[in-house]
């Protein structure tokens, strides 16, 4: 689009928004006015005073005002209490809005009414929660609860489709409310604007029929599953990373702990959490927008299936088809076929949450005595080097630009070696001039023992990067990575490999990595 037409289109949008705003203001004024009148009438209706005893009123000139208002009140009450029987179960606009799904046998009128009466809690309004909420709001789910304690960041926008550029910095819950309300104003949106905590989980979940786990940590997955089992709610759980996604419908049907006919819970499938060092977030591992989008959309789909099948009466539940057998759906964007379904076990006889021997109780959850964070383990920040093996970005900037603080020498381009240990794809995005890329995956795959051994046999078979660094034994080596963790492990590895020549050559890392470099030294260095 040419810039002029962009400007024109923006002008038009502003004009239309201003018109909308004017319209809303006049609607508001009207509504306020009629509310005021209503209050005035109510006041008249209820006003009684000894000074104007209505019975003392002379009826010759008509009924006393107080009687009149009483009569009106009675008349209007009759209307309030017995509205004319509705001719159709849905409003006219609802037939229009949901028409395309109403005509499907899977939904139909009964299904739509069930959606309308249903309440769904979405925990996490990110890459999964945004598309899930959008489709559930679109489908006419009566109430949507939104739980998230984060605010919108620019790096969310490629996948978290309810948020927008203009709402960066707003809480995710508020941003989602704006988007969902404009999508379907008939849906009641309930904000829960803080991170889900064990203390609040039960009271938060209680009022909902179904829960969607759209979170991104193992601890929250166990907490959500336990809470759903305790409250008898079905749980639709999904996750995604890089190019892969996983989906399970858990506790389906939702039966009390000990009832083996209930569906398995998260603990049945994964009784033990993953080792914390193996848990990779989207921020570290990356995520393709449509991959997490697919998983969120599938959550909405499973939710609709569960809700429209839900039965109101025991008689109905006998005739209702049983839910699908438990399964794990695996999505893999770069595999063929992309989707696979794995058959899952039934409830585990010794499950800590849903078996007869369950140790997870409401008290244990809400009192905080079940420590989910500890259960899943926490990773400590890497602290592998001594202070003398680390340099601040300020001092490194001096090495590059000013006099070398260690030697007092003038800067020169090849006074040192700067090693960047990010993976190649990240290095290609942006890097410091003159740096060499030695990805951490290659560094960590290099065995110190083997290298030492091969050192004796004249470096035959030694990895290229090691021999390359050996060729410049005098130059100090500075190691940098994204955040300053891998760089420390790399320095350690280099010393194990003997690249420091028994301490003659300085090897160290840049504290805080390229993030610190950008924050302190070079504001233009890209943030990703």
């Amino acid at each position, binding site marked *: 689009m040419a810039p002029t037409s962009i400007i024109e289109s923006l002008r038009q949008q502003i004009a239309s928004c201003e018109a909308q705003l004017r319209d809303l203001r006049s609607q508001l004024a009207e509504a306020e006015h009629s509310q005021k009148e209503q209050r005035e009438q109510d006041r008249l209706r209820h006003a009684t005073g000894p000074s104007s005893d209505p019975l003392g009123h002379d009826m010759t000139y008509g009924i006393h005002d107080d009687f009149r208002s009483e009569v009106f009140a009675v008349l209007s009450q009759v209307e309030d209490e017995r509205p004319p029987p509705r001719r159709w179960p849905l409003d006219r606009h609802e037939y229009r809005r949901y028409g395309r799904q109403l005509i499907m046998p899977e939904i139909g009128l009964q299904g739509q009414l069930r959606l309308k009466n249903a309440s769904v809690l979405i925990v996490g309004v990110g890459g999964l929660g945004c598309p899930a909420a959008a489709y559930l709001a679109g489908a006419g789910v009566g109430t949507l609860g939104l739980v998230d304690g984060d605010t919108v960041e620019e790096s969310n926008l490629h996948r978290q489709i309810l948020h927008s550029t203009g709402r960066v910095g707003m809480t995710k819950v508020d941003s989602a409310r704006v988007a969902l309300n404009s999508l379907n104003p008939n849906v009641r949106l309930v904000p829960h604007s803080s991170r889900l905590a064990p203390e609040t989980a039960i009271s938060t979940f209680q009022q909902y029929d179904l829960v969607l786990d759209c979170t991104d940590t193992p601890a929250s997955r166990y907490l959500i599953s336990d809470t759903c089992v305790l409250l008898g709610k079905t749980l639709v759980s*999904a*996750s*995604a990373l890089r190019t892969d996604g996983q989906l399970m419908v858990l506790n389906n049907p939702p039966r009390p702990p000990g009832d083996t006919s209930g569906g398995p819970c998260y603990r049945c499938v994964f009784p033990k959490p993953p080792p914390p060092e193996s848990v990779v977030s989207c921020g570290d591992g990356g995520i393709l927008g449509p991959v997490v989008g697919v998983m969120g959309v599938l959550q909405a789909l499973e939710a609709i299936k569960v809700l429209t099948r839900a039965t109101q009466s025991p008689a109905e539940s006998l005739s209702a088809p049983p839910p699908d057998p438990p399964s794990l759906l*695996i999505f893999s964007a770069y595999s063929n076929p992309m989707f696979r379904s794995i*058959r899952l076990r039934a409830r585990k006889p010794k499950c800590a949450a849903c078996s007869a021997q369950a140790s997870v109780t409401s008290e244990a959850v809400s009192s905080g005595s079940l420590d989910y964070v500890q259960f899943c383990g926490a990773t400590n920040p890497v602290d*592998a080097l001594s202070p003398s093996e680390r340099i601040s970005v300020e001092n490194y900037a001096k090495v590059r630009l000013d006099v070398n603080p260690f030697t007092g020498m003038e800067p020169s381009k090849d006074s040192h070696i700067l090693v960047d240990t990010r993976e190649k794809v990240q290095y290609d995005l942006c890097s410091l001039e003159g740096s060499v890329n030695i990805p951490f995956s290659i560094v960590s795959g290099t065995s110190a023992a083997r290298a030492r051994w091969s050192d004796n046999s004249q470096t035959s078979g030694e990895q290229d990067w090691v021999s390359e660094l050996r060729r410049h034994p005098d130059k100090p080596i500075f190691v940098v990575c994204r955040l300053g963790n891998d760089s420390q*492990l790399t320095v350690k590895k280099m010393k194990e490999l003997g690249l420091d020549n028994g301490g003659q050559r300085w090897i160290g890392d840049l504290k805080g990595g390229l993030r610190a470099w950008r924050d302190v030294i070079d504001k233009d260095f890209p943030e990703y």
Partner: protein
Amino acid sequence: MEGDQTINITLGFLGGLDKLVLGDLDENQMAIRLSSRTETGKNVNLKYLFKHIYDNLLVKSERLVPKRDPRYDENDPGKQLPFEEAASVLIENGKIRGGNLVVINEADWECIADDLAEELGVEVVADEMEISDGDKIEFVTTLHGG
């Protein structure tokens, strides 16, 4: 001799395990051949397979090992786990680590163990189930992003 027979099975690694086990290969599957009997003459079972994978297949990625593992302490000789022992997110001390699922011919191995237990009327320990020729055994690690 019967003891010399071999079985062919397919191994698969999903959810990011492919990178760990198979390195930069494009495939997430590999075919392997195993002796059908252990040294003591028993039919090979899953436990045997896990050891085989651990000893022969796992790429030794240090990212998954030291420092970040609370059980590791470089100053305490008792806590300096040998590299192999601390190594993998998949197998530890011969057992599958938390957060991983073993899938045999498209079903959770616990599911197969349950079915087998019902069929035989005895308790079945999942990793003692025997492997048959043609089995497809996959390892799925949980994802947590959202």
